[in-house]
Each structure stands twice: as C-alpha cells, then as structure tokens.
C-alpha cells in the first residue's frame, strides 16, 4: 500500500489548519455562507436533511486496518456509531457537527487520510477495481497509476473550480469491475503489441440526469503521458464546458456539443504542447509507485487444505458462503473474500464502529492488514489463504457480515435517499429493506443466480440505477413518493443503460413488481442463463405484460 511521504503528510496537515481557520471565520461571521460553501464542499462537508454530512475519501478503495480503526473511532466519537460506505469508495458520516469537522479531518490526517475533493466542482476521489492486483484476469495493477493521478489531482490549482464535478476511474483489464465507461474519464489497462504499457481512454461517461456511456477518445495512451493527456482534457473542459446551467455542465455535454471528433481535436491540440515534455511520468516514478503496491510475500498455501475441504463438506452454510462471497485469487491457495454489508434490514453500505473494528482485526489476522471498498458497497479482504476461510467465516458471522448474497438480488446497491439526502424525491432505504425481506429465502436467491438491483432516491443516480439489471428510481408525483423501474442495465465491458418499463409504482408495490419480473425470468430462462441475458434475449415486452397485466 502507498505510504505518505513528507509532502503528502504536509499537504493534509496544512489543509486541516487552513480549513480550521476557514471554519472559525465562518462561525464568527467573517466568512459568508456563499463564500464558505465551496470551501466546505472541497473538504467533504455537505449540509444534509438532518445534520452536516462528512464524506471521507478512500482513494481507489484501498484501506489499511489501522485506517479502518480510525474510521470506527470517528464514527464513535463524532457520529452515532456508524458510517455509510458509498458506491464511489468513500465513507460518509451522516451525523457530524459542523464545528467538529476540522477535528475529524485532523484525526484523519494522523492515518494518512483526508476528505479533500470528495465533493465540489473538482476532480473527485479516484476509483478502481476492488479486486485490483489479486484478480486472475488482470493485465496489471492499476493502483500505482491511481496514486499518481491522486497526487496530481489533489489540489491541482488549475482545476479546483471546474464547471462541475469530475470523476476518474481506472481498471486493470480484462474485465471492467470499475464501471470506467460511466466516468468523466475512464482508463482501461492495455498492453500494446510491442509490450508498452498504457490505457484505453474513455471520456464523457456518467449517470445522473443525462446518463451516457463513455466513448473511446484514445485507443492507447502510453502510461508516461497520463498526466499530460489528462491535463489536456481537463483544460479543454475547464475553458469550454458550460457554466450557465449546472445540469448541462458535465464534460459529457461538452463532448456531445462538440462531437467526439471535435472534442478530441481540441484535446490533441492541447496535448501537442506537452507531449513528450517535462510532465511525462518517469520510469523511476513508476518503479517507486509499483514498489508500494507490490506483494511478493505470499506464504505458500495449499489450495486443497484439508481443514478447508472438511469445512466445505461439513457445513452447507459455509459452502454457500464460499460459493457467493469467495472469489478466485491469482495466487494458488489464496482467495478474495467479500464481507457483505447487505444484511436484511440494515441500510446497504452501513457499517457500525464495532463492525469496522472487527473487520480491521480480521484483515490483520487473515489479509495482510488490507481491506478494499467495492462499488457495490461491500468490504473486501483481498489476500486470504484458503486454509483460513473457516476461521474467517466464523469471524465474519460474528460481525453479521457473512450473508452469502454477493452478486445476488439482496446484495442491492442503494443511495441514502430521502432519509438523509435533501435532494431526494423518495426514500430508498425502506424500499431496499422491503425487497430484502420479501426475498430472503436463500434457496430461491441461489436459484435466481447473479442479479444486480440498484436504487437511487432521485435522478442524480447515486445508486447507479441505470446500470442495474433492475433499476429503481425515486420520483416525485404531486409530492408523493413514486418509483420508476428500469430493466436491462448492465455495467462492465458490455455496458448498457436500462430502459423504463412503464408508469411508476407506489413503494408498497415494489416487492410485487420485482416478484413479477423474477417470475418471467424463472419461466423463460434457458439452462444456465442468467437474469440479464434472459432480459436481453426476450426484450422488455414479456416483462411489461406480466407487471402491467398486458395493459401497456
């Protein structure tokens, strides 16, 4: 993992002192609300429905055990004993006090963390694949590149007041587990025929009220040009992106207005000035960064450890958990374990301070002290020896984090919605709970197989509803909460946006609607065909007919 150098540490400490001063001036009236707003947002501080909310960055989703313990400590001392892990590998504290925010930031700085640029119209936290460096299908670990881009984008002075927020994601190939095509810039690992390392670059993707799949702006960008090229994109966007209407201010609108070709020409012209110049990243920098993330210390471990095999044979519950929550690791005898934050009745993504401490301990015992945050709002232990799986399972069960539902219907993604968010049209957490309660029969869930359900409380799409196989969107009709259902969305390399199936529903109807959709699938599926493939094969009509009784 990356360890702060002096310059990083100095940055976060100076930032805390600066923000403390700004907060003091705000509280004693020397700094106006309007002037303070962007400053607090760039330090992760929102003002929400009930209380201020602080969003802390977990760069590219990688956390050390001691950092997670600090998050637990903050949850206890400054919040109500829990935090919410988001789809963008951040954690949000929903009940902080405004005047204590500088103290929280100071606590974070002691463990090499911060909340810088987790909000506001600037470059946000960089995200990547939660299975980076351990997935068997990966070309190379994207995190050294994420870290370089993190260092550059954090307080990059030119880009602190962009037209709108700007999100960058990296994936290490071959499968895209970071939704790179739904980011303002997506970088997808490529190795050229001559062995050079680089990225395919996508631009202009995003969800929100105008969802768009990002388009390829360069097939291959050599890695040393990452910053030069990103700077060129950002500069074109900063100068020419719309500032008159915040709903049209994202880079996707600029790309659309200029056309991909037109936009790309502008970027190439900008890049021509810096290409090959002093902004190139040196080989030494790559080597230094790679060294932070490399792990060569896997003790040999047997894939067929007898204790593990005995547990598999002896316990159906354990075997089920292994089937859903344990994934292949590139090292023989190791596994990647996903700890579910989707227990029925608990808001998706929420974790208590006790759970955070517990996970930190499990990570130290079984996963080299490392934890990842996934964009499906779960926690991942990336380096677990298979022989340790039974003990880890016991530990996860004791924490209530061993629900064997990863990738299944009840592993749903959900934003905070109307219970917390002042932008919401509708609540999402109670609807998520109703779905989980209705479908908590494990045999049925396992039979349904892989299924992604995503829910957002408004058109901002924080819950990624457009790319859920089933998506649910809270809408407002005459001041009442209604829910629109989409079908057929998909992330990954075959990314598509879901389509609305018809008129929206009241909250109480949603579990029945889901049941109808699932029935069609169960009736119509071919042997071994997963839900989304059946939807793609059949089209929407069969599903609509079942849900609306043929009336649509």
């Amino acid at each position, binding site marked *: 993992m990356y360890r702060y*150098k002096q*310059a*990083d540490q*100095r*940055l*976060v400490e*100076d*930032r805390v*002192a*600066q923000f403390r*001063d*700004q907060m003091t001036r705000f509280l004693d009236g*020397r*700094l106006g609300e309007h*002037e303070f707003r*962007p*400053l607090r947002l760039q330090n992760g501080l929102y003002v929400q429905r009930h209380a201020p909310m602080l969003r802390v960055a977990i760069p590219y989703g990688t956390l050390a055990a001691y950092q997670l313990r600090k998050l637990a400590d903050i949850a206890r001392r400054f919040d109500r004993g829990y935090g919410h892990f988001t789809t963008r590998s951040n954690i949000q504290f929903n009940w902080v006090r405004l005047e204590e925010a500088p103290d929280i930031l100071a606590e974070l700085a002691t463990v090499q963390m911060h909340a810088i640029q987790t909000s506001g*119209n600037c470059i946000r936290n960089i995200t990547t694949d939660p299975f980076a460096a351990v997935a068997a299908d990966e070309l190379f670990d994207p995190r050294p590149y994420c870290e*370089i881009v993190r*260092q*550059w984008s*954090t*307080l*990059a*002075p*030119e*880009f*602190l*007041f*962009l*037209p709108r927020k700007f999100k960058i994601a990296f994936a290490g190939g071959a499968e895209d587990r970071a939704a790179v095509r739904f980011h303002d810039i997506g970088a997808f690992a490529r190795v050229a025929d001559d062995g050079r390392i680089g990225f395919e670059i996508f631009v202009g993707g995003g969800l929100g009220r105008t969802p768009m799949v990002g388009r390829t702006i360069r097939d291959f960008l050599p890695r040393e040009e990452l*910053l030069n090229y990103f*700077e060129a994109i950002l*500069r074109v966007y*900063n*100068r020419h992106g719309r*500032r008159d209407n915040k709903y049209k201010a994202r880079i996707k609108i600029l790309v659309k207005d200029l056309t991909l070709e037109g936009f790309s020409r502008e970027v190439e012209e900008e890049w021509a*000035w810096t290409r090959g*110049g*002093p*902004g190139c990243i040196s080989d030494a920098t790559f080597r230094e960064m790679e060294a932070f993330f490399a792990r060569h210390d896997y003790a040999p471990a047997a894939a067929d450890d007898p204790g593990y095999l005995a547990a598999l044979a002896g316990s159906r519950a354990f075997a089920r958990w292994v089937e859903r929550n344990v994934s292949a690791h590139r090292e023989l005898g190791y596994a990647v374990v996903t700890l579910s934050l989707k227990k029925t009745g608990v808001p998706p993504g929420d974790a208590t301070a006790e759970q955070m401490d517990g996970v930190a301990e499990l990570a130290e015992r079984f996963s080299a002290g490392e934890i990842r945050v996934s964009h499906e709002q779960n926690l991942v232990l990336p380096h677990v020896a298979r022989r340790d799986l039974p003990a880890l399972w016991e530990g996860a069960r004791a924490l209530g984090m061993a629900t064997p539902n990863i990738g299944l219907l009840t592993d749903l993604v959900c934003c905070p919605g109307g219970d917390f968010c002042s932008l919401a049209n509708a609540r999402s957490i109670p609807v998520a709970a109703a779905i989980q309660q209705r479908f908590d029969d494990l045999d049925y869930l396992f039979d349904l197989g892989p299924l992604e359900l995503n829910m957002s409380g408004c058109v901002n799409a924080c819950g990624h509803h457009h790319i859920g196989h089933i998506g649910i969107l809270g809408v407002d009709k005459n001041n009442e909460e209604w829910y629109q259902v989409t079908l057929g969305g998909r992330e990954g390399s075959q990314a598509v946006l879901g389509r609305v199936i018809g008129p929206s529903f009241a909250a109480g109807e949603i579990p029945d609607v889901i049941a109808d959709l699932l029935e069609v699938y169960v009736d119509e599926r071919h042997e071994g065909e997963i839900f989304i493939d059946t939807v793609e094969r059949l089209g929407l009509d069969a599903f609509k007919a079942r849900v609306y009784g043929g009336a649509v």
Partner: protein
Amino acid sequence: MSTLIRHGTVADDDWQWIEGDVTQLVERMEAGERLVLPLAVWLAHRLRRDPPRVGVWLGPDDPLEALLPWLADIPLVAIRFPLFTDGRGYSLARLLRCRYGYTGELRAVSDVLVDQLAVMAQCGFDSFGLRADQPPAEALAALVGGLRSPWPVIAMP
C-alpha cells in the same frame, strides 16, 4: 475601494481601468495615462499604443490566443473573475505563464477573495485586485507569512 496586492504587499493602483470603447482614448494614451483596455479595444488600438503604458484585461472566455504575438511587450495582463467559482481564469493564467512565457504583471480582478489567493498564486498570478469587502491583512496573510497553504504533491510544469 478595492485593495491591490502586488508582489506580496499592498500597493497603489497606478492603472486606469477602461471598461468599453470610450472617447478620447487616443488622447489619453498620448497624454501618458496608463490604461488597461479590454481585449477588443486593446486589439483595435494596438498600433497607436505606447507598449509599456497600455495593459489589457481579459474576460474568462476571451480568446487569449489573440494576444500572443505581442505578449513580450505587455506590462500588465488582468484576468477578470466574474464569480470566484468560475475557474476559467486559472487556465488562462497557467497558459500565459507556463506555455507562452509571459513575464509581466498578471493580475486577478473582480470577485477575488482571500481564500483563493494562494491557489491563484500557484497558477501564476502575482497581483490581486481584491473584492472591496476583503480584508487586506487577511489577504496578505494568505499570501505571505500566515498559514502555510497546502501545496500539491505532483505539480505540473
């Protein structure tokens, strides 16, 4: 009255600001007044001007590129921030300083607030016409001597 901070101290503003195309411009230039002209006016009068005495100001979407042939002679370029959250001026400053090698005075004007000064300086501004309500002492502290402002770990050339 807006305070001017130049090269780290409070300074007198010895420039006359011209908002649009005004009468007697040529006479005023010939009389030796130091004028800052909007880009369009500056371009229209560039043949009549006495280079060291005429500056130019740019709005955030003005085509900076039009100035390039004369950049070396211009004593003052001012960039207007209609709103402090409008970040286009930062890119203009970076381009002037880093790409086009402008070495004269580069001034931020209009909605220029204490809390953005350090970042503006990082982009290459060396003088600041503060918004009227901004306390000069705090502005100075933000630039020199006060709290250290955080500095990016990787800064682009």
